[in-house]
C-alpha cells in the first residue's frame, strides 16, 4: 500500500489535523514520524491513504492549517517528499 504522511510540528497539531480530517470524512491516523523524515528529532505525522491526499490537503488549507511537508511512503518503505 502507498500512503502519504502529513508532517506536523507537534503531537497536538497532528491530533488536530486528524480530527479535522475525520470531521470531513477522511480517515487519518496519528503516528510517530519515521526518523528519516523527522530531521529535528521526535515528530508526529498523520497518515492518509493515497486516494485521500488531495481532499485532505484541501480541507487543511481551508482550515488555515496547510502542512509543512508531505511525504509519500512507498510499498517498499521508501520516503520521498512531494509538494504540499
Amino acid at each position, binding site marked *: 500500500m502507498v500512503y502519504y504522511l502529513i508532517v506536523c*510540528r*507537534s*503531537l*497536538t*497539531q497532528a*491530533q*488536530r489535523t486528524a*480530527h479535522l480530517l475525520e470531521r470531513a470524512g477522511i480517515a487519518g491516523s*496519528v*503516528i*510517530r514520524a519515521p526518523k528519516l523524515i523527522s*530531521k*529535528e*528529532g*521526535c*515528530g*508526529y505525522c498523520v497518515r492518509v491513504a493515497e486516494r485521500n491526499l488531495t481532499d485532505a490537503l484541501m480541507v487543511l488549507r481551508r482550515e488555515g492549517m496547510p502542512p509543512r511537508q508531505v511525504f509519500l511512503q512507498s510499498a517498499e518503505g521508501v520516503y520521498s517528499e512531494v509538494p504540499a
Partner: protein
Amino acid sequence: MIYLDSAATTLEKPRSVPAAAAWAMTHMASPGRGGHPASALAADTMYRCRELAAELFGVGDPERVILTSNATHGLNIAIRSLVERGSTVLISGYEHNAVTRPLYALPDVKVKIAAGPLFDADGVYEAFRRELTPDVDAVICNHVSNVFGFVQPVDRIAALCRERGAPLIVDASQSAGTLPVDLGRWGAAFVAMPGHKGLYGPQGTGLLLCGGETRPLLYGGTGSQSRLQEMPDFLPDQLEAGTQNVCGAAGLLAGMRFVKERGIGRIRAHETGLARRMMDRLAAVPGVTVYRGPDQSGLFSVTVDHMDCEEAGAALAKRGVAVRAGLHCSPLAHRTAGTEESGTVRFSFSAFSTARQTDRAAGLFRQIVTQGKEAR
C-alpha cells in the same frame, strides 16, 4: 461533614472524575513519548481535554490550551511571558498572592493598583480607566474575588484593554465553571484557571488559555524536536515540559463534561441561591457582618464582632462544618475591603451543596456566635 469550602477545592466530585483518574493511572502511559497504544490513549485524553476546554472557554485553537498544575502555575507562565525587569503592571485591588507574589519576585517591576470599592463594579471600572495609562505593560484582574465573591467587571475592563492596547491576564479561578469565561470575546492575552474548583477535576490540574505571545517557564523534554536544545516555539509543547499529569487530565476531562452537561448557568443559579439563603440567615444574627452585594457569585465572607475569625472557623470545624477563615492568601483584597486586620470567615458552595446543609451550617454558626458572646 458539611463542606462549604468549595472556593478552595470542590471536594465532592461527579463519580466519573475519580473513576477516570483511577483508570488512567493503570491504562495510560506518557503522552507524546511513544507510539504504543497506552501512550496514544494518554495523548488522546489530553487532546480531548484541550478540545473541550477550547469549546467551553472560547479558544479557537485547542493547541492554545495549556494543561497546568493549577491556576498559580498558569498565572506564573502568563506573568513571565508579559512582565520583565522595569515593567509596569496594573492589577485590581482584589488579587490573590498567585498574582502579587510572582510580580513581587521580579526585579524593578512597578505595580499599580486599581482599587475600587467592594461590590461597586462601576467604581472598579473607573479605577481601571483612571490608572490604565500608556506606561502600563500588562493588566491583571481576577474575574471573581476569592474572598468576597465580588464579580469584577471583566467584560468592560477587557474592552478598555483592547481599546488602549494593553495585554490582559484574567484569573478565572473562582469563575470557571460558574460564569461565562471567554478568551476570544475578551481578547485577553491569557486566562488562567484551576481544574480542581468549579471544573470538578482533581487537585494538581489547571488550564492556561493563551491568546498572546508566550515564554516558557520550565525547560525540558517535550517529545518534539528532540535534537534541538531550544524549547519548541509552538504551543502547547513550549509550555508543557516534562511528563504531564495524565491522570489529572482524565479526571479534569470528566469534570468538564459534567459542567457542560449540567450547564454553567444552572450551576451558578444553584450556588448563588444557596449563598443568598445563608447570607439572609447569618445577617439576622446579632454581631455578624455579612459582606454582600449586587455582583456576587456563590461565595461570601463574614466577620463576627469580638470573635477571631480563626476561632469561629475552628468552632465550625469542631461541629463538622468545613469553611476557610483568615486572609485566604489575598491580603490585598482584605486591605481593599478593610478586613485585613480581622480576616473573615468564608463560606463557598458547589453544585453538590444542598439547602439542608446550608441551613444546618447557618444554625450552628448562630449557636457559636451566641455562645461566644455569652461566654464573655
